[in-house]
């Protein structure tokens, strides 16, 4: 078990090194940072002095090692545009994105699994058929369109919910939260639905098809033949067996929720890291882009690691510690 986790961690580190290389390459190949830092009026000596000062004349490997060394300590340099440390800018923005992603993820998981189980058990019921048809919308409509439709309906026409921003937030010093104010909570509703809808329908359809498969298995038949209650057969016996593939997809999708928050944040002007990234792209603010890239890849890698550990927890066949031998 421990060896399994250590091996996975080791693999994760290799992935992060590779992503770090890509992020670092942006500095080298997406334009010359000197061009951005010095204006039109410059001498060759100025350029050379700055190159030397920034360490840009060192060999590639040395620069990469330096970049990694700083990245590990959370130092991604100074934003070209805001002239402030990138880590500081991201730390300000991260709570907004993480809170949004958290609410979307919880929504997608609970509603997705719930509806998936329901539509599998009531396979031929009218309610299940309606849910399945409606879910096609969630799978097929692009996120920005859903966001705009929701804004139009609940923001513009009904005027029930705010259409942009986080509302009032409470500053806890190291974290700003929208969970503690009613305007903050209200502001979360539309963006989190927009962000989570695709994942919700995906999880629902996945749970449904896995569940239908599992319900055909002999052990479900045997559970029924032992007179177990419908609740026990459906949830204790069937749902647990659908969880391994669901965890895989859900894990990746949670990563996707954070990464693709870019679109939702743009539509709702949500002050998170996604919006920060879009702005950084517009101004070729490479340190911010590189930091964002690293941040997202760290999250993906961590989620994958978590998923691998969850498998073992759910499926005893993967436990290779020989507890019962």
């Amino acid at each position: 078990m421990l060896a399994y986790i250590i091996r996975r961690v080791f693999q994760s580190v290799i992935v992060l090194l590779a992503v770090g290389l890509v992020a670092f390459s942006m500095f080298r190949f997406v334009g010359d940072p000197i061009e951005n830092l010095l204006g039109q009026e410059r001498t060759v000596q100025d350029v050379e002095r700055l190159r030397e000062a920034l360490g840009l004349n060192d060999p590639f490997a040395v620069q990469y090692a330096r970049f990694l060394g700083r990245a590990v300590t959370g130092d991604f340099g100074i934003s070209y545009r805001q002239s402030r440390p990138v880590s500081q800018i991201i730390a300000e923005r991260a709570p907004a994105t993480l809170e949004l992603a958290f609410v979307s993820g919880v929504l997608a998981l609970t509603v997705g699994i719930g509806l998936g189980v329901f539509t599998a058990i009531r396979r031929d019921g009218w309610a299940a058929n309606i849910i399945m048809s409606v879910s096609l919308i969630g799978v097929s409509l692009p996120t920005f369109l859903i966001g705009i439709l929701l804004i139009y309906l609940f923001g513009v026409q009904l005027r029930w919910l705010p259409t942009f921003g986080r509302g009032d937030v409470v500053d806890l010093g190291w974290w700003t939260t929208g969970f503690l104010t009613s305007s903050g909570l209200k502001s979360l509703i539309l963006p989190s639905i927009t962000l989570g809808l695709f994942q919700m329908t995906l999880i629902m359809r996945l749970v449904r098809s896995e569940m239908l498969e599992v319900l055909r298995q002999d052990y479900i038949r045997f559970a029924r033949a032992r007179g177990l209650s419908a609740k026990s057969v459906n949830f204790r016996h069937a749902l647990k067996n659908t969880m391994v593939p669901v965890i895989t997809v859900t894990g990746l999708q949670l990563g996707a929720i954070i990464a693709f928050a870019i679109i939702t944040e743009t539509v709702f002007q949500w002050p998170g890291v996604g919006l920060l990234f879009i702005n950084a792209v517009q101004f070729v603010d490479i340190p911010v882009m590189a930091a964002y890239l690293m941040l997202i890849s760290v999250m993906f890698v961590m989620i994958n690691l978590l998923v691998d550990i969850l498998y073992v927890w759910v499926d005893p066949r993967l436990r290779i510690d020989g507890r019962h031998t």
Partner: protein
Amino acid sequence: MDMPVLSLRNLTVDIPTRHGTLRPVDDVSWDIAAGEILGVVGESGAGKSMTGNAVIGLLDPPAHISAGEVLLEGERIDNYTLAQMRRVRGKRIGMVFQDPLTSLNPLLTIGEQLSETILRHLDVSRSEADARAIQGLDEVGIPSARNRMGAYPHEFSGGMRQRVVIALALCAEPTLLIADEPTTALDVSVQAQIIALLKRLCRERGMAAMLVTHDMGVIAETADRVAVMYAGRLAEIGPVSQIVGQPRHPYTDGLMASTPAASAGQARLRQIPGAMPRLNRMPDGCAFHPRCPRAQDKCRVNPGPKVGTADERAACWFPIEQDEAAA
């Protein structure tokens, strides 16, 4: 005679399809007394498993019981609601399926699966349920049962898993056991152990059993009486010695003659020409007549009459008589 544990009265199962109604089980009647093992034999698709599923109420829709009655200890259960049936399954009828590798939930320990079933049917505390589970495992011959409670199904061999399945089916002490090909998926050496185990449990508990199989060896070894099914109908039923030794229905006769016996020095096994008709192409009259050496005109018009007593009868116009068989 005591009241039989299970009585089937003209049980008929229908499957409505777009191209007409199929009848996988047609007018089947038999009794099983307490402590008695009824072997049910027949080719694949003869309706053996379907009959078992009909008894325990696990027919897959659209299959349903369209006529006849199922009586459990004199009580009619075929019209029970699902909720009532859940109290019968496991508690009064235990069922064992063919493949022990897939019959157990891979994600729950066998202890969890056992206690869950016991708690469902018996009014006992959790610790008592565990104690009964251990006792049940002990009874089916799982070594060091106490230590195996926390083990998962994949940690057992096929034969051991079938023992666990039997323990599960019997943990709430049902009066009737339906075993649907319980040894088919097992090694021959393990088959004998499982059969011996089932036989012992039936005798010790006075439990009635319906043993579905296509293995004549298993039947001859285990059953007290044998029911031979053909194309959904009961061809012949009788004590095992008669079915094996002096079959009256030509199909039973053919079935016995085509079973290899280790002792007999037969040069060549006899075979029944042709194949069992498919459900959507059932011939008129006796379903066996296209393959029957004794078939005459009236066999092609009307199904064979039931000749004999309730305990031993064959559905045939021209049953094989005793003196004839001897000749």
